[in-house]
């Protein structure tokens, strides 16, 4: 029975997408599907952290943004003048910073504890910081001065953005390693607070460091990942046009749908691979050990399991999965818009997906991702429509506009209520952990 129940729930969600396609448009439906599939991958990443190991991170948006940055660095057009103006020097500055911090940790370990060490290291770090700024600042000014209207950044490698996907995962993993080293092993809410901070810093960097990814000036026209063609090229390609004409379809609509289907297939393949891997991992000795640690850290430690190391490992894996999804998202959208990286959209929405779907269960995360993903985006077109119907009797005026404005804010409220209700009445979610 339980088996049918799950299948039925997936079928129900599929119906939502089909209805959207039939009643609104297939383009919209597929668009929502693609974003929902990406959310599913992020939800799997969060599920690895929370469901498998009980780690609560509020910095999901940071990993997503790092994935997006990876796409820019790997696949955006090279800006040779910008790079020549200061690229190597920026790299030098960053390398210097890494070296200085490494040296500081080494000295901290070697020197005898005491006030002398504290003061000495503090002074050393301040001096190092100013040297770092002295190397970095002129280079940044030089890079940003280069053609600020169109470039002003160091540019990318111009490679296919498919390559950026694993790079995004690696970058998110590296950030997770740093934060995990510091915040894991303390009280569990400290991880939540620290990740909240690091995510905000990552997004601030993206927003303000114009040399990196043009900041709020946005970076558009990123190339498509490997097999996906541009719609305009498709519309000129006879190989595509002939079958379309044979089926009596409009070539423009057909090309946009074809591209979206292609993305959906690619995301579906990645998702399937991830789920396969996760299921294997969960049912292996490793998975049992991880759950044992989650359920009782003390007894797991007593059995000789290295709790801190395993937490770090899982935190890194989960963040990497989220980073991968972030890279996939930016490479699909073809642009990086730092202001769109809001914690509500990418941290807490994903959390709602995992908890509603069923924490600890990969299929639950996917169901939650598809369902909440659809709901979140569908409210965008359904909400105003419903509100328009409801307020159609009212005369035009401030009350009507206010009511119509509140429709878009309803979304947050609804998400919060859904989260609270599920936590209270069905804490195991729609598909509970076995």
């Amino acid at each position, binding site marked *: 029975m339980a088996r049918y129940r799950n299948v039925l729930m997936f079928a129900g969600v599929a119906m939502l997408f089909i209805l959207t396609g039939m009643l609104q448009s297939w383009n919209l439906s597929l668009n929502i599907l693609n974003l929902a599939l990406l959310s599913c991958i992020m939800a799997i990443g969060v599920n690895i952290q929370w469901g498998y190991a009980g780690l609560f991170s509020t910095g999901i948006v940071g990993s997503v943004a790092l994935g997006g940055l990876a796409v820019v660095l790997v696949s955006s057009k090279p800006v040779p003048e910008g790079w020549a103006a200061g690229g190597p020097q920026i790299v030098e500055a960053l390398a210097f910073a890494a070296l200085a911090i490494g040296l500081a940790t080494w000295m901290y370990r070697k020197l005898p504890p005491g006030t002398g060490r504290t003061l000495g290291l503090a002074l050393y770090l301040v001096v190092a910081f100013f040297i770092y700024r002295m190397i970095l600042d002129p280079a940044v000014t030089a890079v940003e001065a280069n053609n600020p209207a169109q470039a002003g950044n160091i540019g990318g490698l111009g490679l296919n953005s498919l390559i950026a996907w694993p790079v995004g995962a690696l970058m998110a993993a590296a950030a997770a390693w740093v934060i995990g080293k510091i915040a894991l092993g303390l009280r569990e809410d400290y991880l939540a607070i620290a990740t909240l901070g690091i995510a905000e810093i990552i997004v601030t960097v993206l927003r303000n460091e114009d040399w990196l990814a043009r900041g709020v000036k946005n970076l558009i026209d990123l190339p498509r990942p490997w097999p996906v063609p541009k719609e305009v090229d498709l519309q000129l390609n006879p190989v595509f046009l002939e079958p379309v004409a044979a089926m009596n379809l409009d070539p423009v609509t057909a090309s946009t749908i074809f591209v979206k289907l292609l993305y959906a297939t690619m995301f579906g393949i990645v998702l399937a691979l991830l789920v396969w891997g996760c299921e294997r991992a969960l049912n292996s000795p490793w998975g049992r050990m991880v759950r044992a640690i989650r359920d009782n850290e003390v007894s797991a430690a007593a059995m000789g399991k290295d709790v801190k190391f395993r937490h770090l490992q899982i935190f890194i894996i989960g963040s990497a999965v989220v980073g991968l999804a972030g890279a996939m998202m930016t490479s699909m959208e073809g642009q990086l818009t730092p202001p769109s990286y809001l914690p509500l959209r990418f941290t807490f929405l994903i959390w709602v997906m995992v*908890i509603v779907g069923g924490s600890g269960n990969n299929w639950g995360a996917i169901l939650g991702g598809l369902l909440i993903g659809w709901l979140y985006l569908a409210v965008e077109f359904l909400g105003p429509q419903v509100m328009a119907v409801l307020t159609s009797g009212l005369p035009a005026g401030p009350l009507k506009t206010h009511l119509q404005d509140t429709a878009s804010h309803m979304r*947050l*409220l609804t998400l919060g209520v859904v989260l609270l209700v599920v936590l209270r009445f069905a804490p195991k979610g729609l598909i509970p952990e076995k």
Partner: protein
Amino acid sequence: MDLLNALTAFLNFIVVPGLAYGSQLALGALGITLIFSVLRFSNFAHGDTMAFGTAFVILFTWWFQSMGITAGPLPTALLALPLGILITIAMVLATDRVVYRFYRKQRAKPIIVVIVSTGVMFVMHGLVRMIIGTSEQNFSDGARMLLNPQDFRAATGLAEPLAIKTTQAISVAAAAICCVALFWFLQRTRTGKSMRAYADNEDLALLSGINPERVVTITWIVAGALACIAGTLYGLDKSYRGVVYFSLLMPMFAAAIVGGLGSPLGAVVGSFIVAFSELIVTNAWRKIFSYLVPPDWLGDGLYQALSTDYKVAVSFGILIIVLLFRPQGIFGGK
């Protein structure tokens, strides 16, 4: 060398804003630390509780203004504050009754309650947006300046002005009053002592006949009142936008953890540490230096360690340092 002017600039750009901002943070961080010590979870909804309370203070302020009631040189918001506090308290008590009490009875893991509090945060944030929208609201009125920069310059003959906004003075005064009242309440009254006893050792407190529900209710009342005051002061000082209160969470948590989570005194001290570090790191020191060293030594740098956009990095940095080297905080919390 012009020490007096340098000192004035230092007061004007660091000390005065630091004291005001630190006071506002302290009132917020006190709420976080109280909730942590009694209810034993980190309340992620605290920033949005502040926004919620402030939204109502603004509504009442507008109502008073429309009736022609003002507080003379003081902002009308001070008159509206008690009403706002009542609504905030009603709201936090209602959330406790509907949401948190269930998990307390269940003795749920703290991390679950933290997640629940993010759910509450969502709800509050949504409510704030529906009530007052996302645009900036300026609700400060009355005399703008306690110390007018022109007057200061005329009186002292210095080149540098010193300005003290009314809202800054009110922030510091309000924080001082609230802190004194709170510490008196915690140290001297029976209820305050029962709160500390409960925070110290739950089982022992229960054995000696302390009613836990009463302690929890009082904690929420105090935290809610402080949150509303802190939010209103911050809004008066910097003009109100519902969304910025979420980003106050980071400095407030940093302040509470620096001082030692669960220690009220620590929260106050931590808040000033965070506030002054933020200002010292993100201030452009060029002006102050220009009075201390000959102009041709200065070059054309701003002498700013980090741009003001990276404020959050400062509180984060402080948090990391504390977590690495002294996770229990200065005053040894839990």
